């Protein structure tokens, strides 16, 4: 199809879809009029059952924990996929990797501050995720971002410390695999897969929630390393095009 024909076909189709959406919306309950039961039941029973205060995280890691297991593996598969797609098989493009060194101390200082802050925020998000808002995913992303800044402000000539994904893969594997293994542990003790194994602890503390904490940590680990690999993979492609003379100038 030429672009004009495509537009001519697309327009009516989108109009049709819009009409369908409008029809569906007419059948929805008014905004703010959620009727349940699913959410209401969980809001009532999760805190007494699990002693975690953040019902969203309890839903993510316990009640609907399998969804999150799938989600960890979506991330895992994507990182593997991006690694496969951006790898350089021919070897022809293996120009010597040189990046411009960062020389300004002020920028470096700000960077170090950002790293420290980022690491703290990330760890805090992961750690307290099942009590207050946060959790493995945002915490993991912030951690990855912070470590990345560490690279950017450090005078690393190369990505060696973590461009070498052989060193990172095990961690990511432990994160994603650990999630499944926690589920299998429950199965091995005669309980359903991903059943909550440990005591539920005191409401509102880090020790509440039993397996939720472990799964949350596993997710945080998996996300942090997955994101780090992902960022590194993309940034390397940014670094490579700098030809030696480019970098020298």
């Amino acid at each position, binding site marked *: 199809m030429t*672009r004009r024909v*495509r*537009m001519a076909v*697309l327009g009516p189709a*989108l109009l049709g*879809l*819009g009409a369908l*959406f*409008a029809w569906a*919306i*007419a059948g*929805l*309950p*008014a*905004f*703010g*009029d*959620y009727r*349940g039961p*699913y*959410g*209401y039941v*969980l*809001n*009532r029973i*999760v*805190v*007494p059952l699990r002693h975690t*205060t*953040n*019902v*969203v995280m*309890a*839903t*993510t890691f316990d009640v*609907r924990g399998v*969804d*999150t297991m*799938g*989600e960890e593996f*979506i*991330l895992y598969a*994507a990182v593997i*996929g*991006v690694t496969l*797609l*951006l790898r350089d098989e021919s070897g022809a493009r293996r120009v010597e990797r040189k990046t411009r060194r960062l020389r300004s101390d002020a920028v470096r200082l700000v960077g170090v501050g950002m790293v420290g802050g980022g690491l703290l925020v990330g760890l805090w998000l992961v750690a307290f995720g099942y*009590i*207050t*808002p946060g*959790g493995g*995913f945002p915490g993991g992303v912030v951690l990855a971002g912070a470590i990345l800044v560490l690279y950017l402000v450090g005078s690393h000539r190369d990505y060696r410390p973590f461009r070498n994904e052989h060193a990172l893969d095990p961690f990511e594997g432990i994160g994603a695999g650990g999630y499944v293994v926690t589920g299998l542990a429950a199965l091995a003790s005669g309980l359903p897969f991903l059943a909550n194994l440990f005591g539920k602890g005191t409401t*509102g503390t880090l020790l509440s929630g039993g397996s939720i904490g472990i799964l949350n940590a596993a997710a945080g680990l998996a996300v942090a390393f997955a994101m780090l690999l*992902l960022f590194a*993979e*993309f940034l390397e*492609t940014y670094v490579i095009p700098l030809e030696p003379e480019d970098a020298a100038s």
Partner: protein
Amino acid sequence: MSYLPYAVAAWLCLVGLAGVATSRNLIHLAVCLTVTQSSSYVLLLTVGYVKHGRAPIFKGIKLGTPAVDPVVQALTLTDIVVSVVVVALILALALDAHRLSGTVDPDGLADVKG
């Protein structure tokens, strides 16, 4: 008036679709795809909203206080991860396409057809 929030979600879906179908740049296309997907989480959070409800986090709040649906929020979290992943994969493919053909225009990629 009470249906407008849903209409916003439908609007996002259509706008994103139009963007994806007419995009001339795979990087642009990937971002349009996230707009389409944002429709699904806006819709999810909208349908789970309870008027005057608190967030479903019962720290310092008595149990039984009206709170919004936690389930849609859990689903949204998964949805957001999916969207990041899809963007990353499509961008990686876009880079490969650019390396091999010198273009990121999806219309210019049609190596195989018929």
